């Protein structure tokens, strides 16, 4: 059963330059115990989805569609009702979690605050809970009395994970949880998240730009581009991509098996969300675009069991995957564009 069901979510930001549609008709669902990764370039709307789920969109944002948790649409709940759901049932490891701790309070007190706000408990129980949380994320419980500046970046990150786990939520939304950490610490933290996720059977929503991270950790993948879902499905999305953008993303990262090959970047940059192009959003950068792609937006269609892609050429994928492995194909498009 889906714990979190996102249906046709649309988020628009009112800006001085006009309305920017950061998320445009996104649907997917997260099953209990699933680890789902949303991957895409900067500005494709990944973080906006996380903010919409947590109800912390900025004031100039407007969200449409539905985010269903236990058949309640979080988008229409008032603040009081929303507070009963968030953190208790859906918690978050925020972006730049290293700075998500208030510098003036001790780490333990901040986690205690989150607990007390939802499920008040007496001092002894609270103390035990805090110790257990820190043990779970692998920090000595003595550090609970430290201020954030006394912890390393990785520890602060893990403290935030402890805070997210504090109320034993069903869903944890992690928005680029390892930004600003070096690769080794990043790896440790993601490993820790994965361990906890498996041990406690939480549903995880991981938002990242790093396709390698998704590949290593997630069992469900959503690939986003310019506010829309390009492709989604199980882990097979990364093994047998059915969208040229996914092919491009995989090309742009070092091979997961450590096989040496040339990295291919996708020339150009994502389109303006103020004025999205007609047809497929990716057509301007896609070396395999047909005239049809500039005219008509492809629908998200099932290409294999549980695997959906939005591409007019999904049928030609064998050829596209083969040609997409050749840097020349992408560079040629870059010259034209």
């Amino acid at each position: 059963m889906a714990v979190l069901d996102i249906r046709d979510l649309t988020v628009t930001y009112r800006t001085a330059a006009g309305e920017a549609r950061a998320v445009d008709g996104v649907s997917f669902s997260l099953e209990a115990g699933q680890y789902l990764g949303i991957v895409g370039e900067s500005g494709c709307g990944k973080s906006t989805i996380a903010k919409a789920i947590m109800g912390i969109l900025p004031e100039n944002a407007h969200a449409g569609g539905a985010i269903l948790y236990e058949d309640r649409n979080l988008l229409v709940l008032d603040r009081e009702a929303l507070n009963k759901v968030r953190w208790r049932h859906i918690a978050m490891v925020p972006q730049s979690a290293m700075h998500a701790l208030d510098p003036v309070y001790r780490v333990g007190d901040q986690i205690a605050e989150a607990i007390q706000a939802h499920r008040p408990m007496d001092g002894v129980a609270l103390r035990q809970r805090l110790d257990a949380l820190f043990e779970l994320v692998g920090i000595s419980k003595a550090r609970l009395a430290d201020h954030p500046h006394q912890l390393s970046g990785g520890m602060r990150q893990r403290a935030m994970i402890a805070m997210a786990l504090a109320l034993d939520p069903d869903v944890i939304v992690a928005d680029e949880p390892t930004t600003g950490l070096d690769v080794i610490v990043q790896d440790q933290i993601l490993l820790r998240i994965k361990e906890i996720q498996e041990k406690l059977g939480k549903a995880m929503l991981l938002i990242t730009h790093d396709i390698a991270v998704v590949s290593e950790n997630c069992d469900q993948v959503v690939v986003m581009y310019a506010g829309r879902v390009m492709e989604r499905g199980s882990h097979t999305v990364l093994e047998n991509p059915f969208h040229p953008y996914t092919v491009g993303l995989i090309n742009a990262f070092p091979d997961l098996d450590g096989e040496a090959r040339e990295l291919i970047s996708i020339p150009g940059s994502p389109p303006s969300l103020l004025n999205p192009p007609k047809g497929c959003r990716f057509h301007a950068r896609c070396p395999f675009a047909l005239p049809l792609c500039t005219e008509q937006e492809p629908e998200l269609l099932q290409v294999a069991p549980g695997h959906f892609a939005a591409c007019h050429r999904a049928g030609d994928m064998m050829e596209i995957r083969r040609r997409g492995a050749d840097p020349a194909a992408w560079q040629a498009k870059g010259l034209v564009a």
Partner: protein
Amino acid sequence: MSDNTLRVSRKWQMTRLFHTIMRYPSGSVAFAFLLVFFAMALIGPWVAPYGPFETIYDKDEMPIRLAAPSAQHWLGTTNHGVDVFSQLLWGARIALVVGVLSALGSVLLGTLIGLLAGYFSGIVDEIIMRFTDIAYGIPFLPFALVVISIVQPSIGLIIILVIAFLWRTTARVIRSQVLTLRERPFVLAARAAGLSELAILFRHVAPNVLPLSFLYVAIGVQAGVMSEAALSFLGFGDPNVMSWGLMLNDAFRAGAMRSAWWWVLPPGICLSILVISTFMVTRAYEELVNPRLRKR
């Protein structure tokens, strides 16, 4: 949680503040002066040989008018035969009380206004800040003189007037600080964790602007002391409370500004040293709050 850690870190903060102040020769001298003034304010009325309005008579029952400094009257006497040294001691208490109370009051008010304006932004911010702009347009002395000439002058009124004019700067500075704080990840995290807006404002935003508020308390003390002295010198002070400004006013009205130096110089010098010392200590504290000023 062990409270020891907290105590140690607070003690460490205070030690650091003390060392920063002491690192400057000006800072340590100023700190010593401030201690002297505090001692004067604290115990002055008990050690003062005479009352602040007490006329002293000689054996012939005549007031000792305008006597130069002597062993009996260290700083001489006024034209009414009042001991200047005693007045100086009594006046220290008023200077510090007015300075500290008006500074605390104005910063409390200014911080509150700045917090609300900066955090809630939009229409609330617009209304509060336009009101602040208007408040900025009113000049202090003329306004204060008019109010005092209508209402009975008193120390309380002067403190209220100073507060009414000092909160503006604090409010602006705190607001701009809050504008950046409200976008910090920990504020978002607190909101996502389900804290109410007021709880976020007072538990997570306010403590982060406190160092800046304290800086404005220190600055406000100088302004408060100077304003009280200025008003008293102009004859708009509380006539029943001896202050340094009132001493100068008395000397001026008696036409003794040039002749009785022992009457004029002590309050003038005390005022200058108090204000300068406060400034020097503030400077050192500011360096702690604003690392950009720190010497490497």
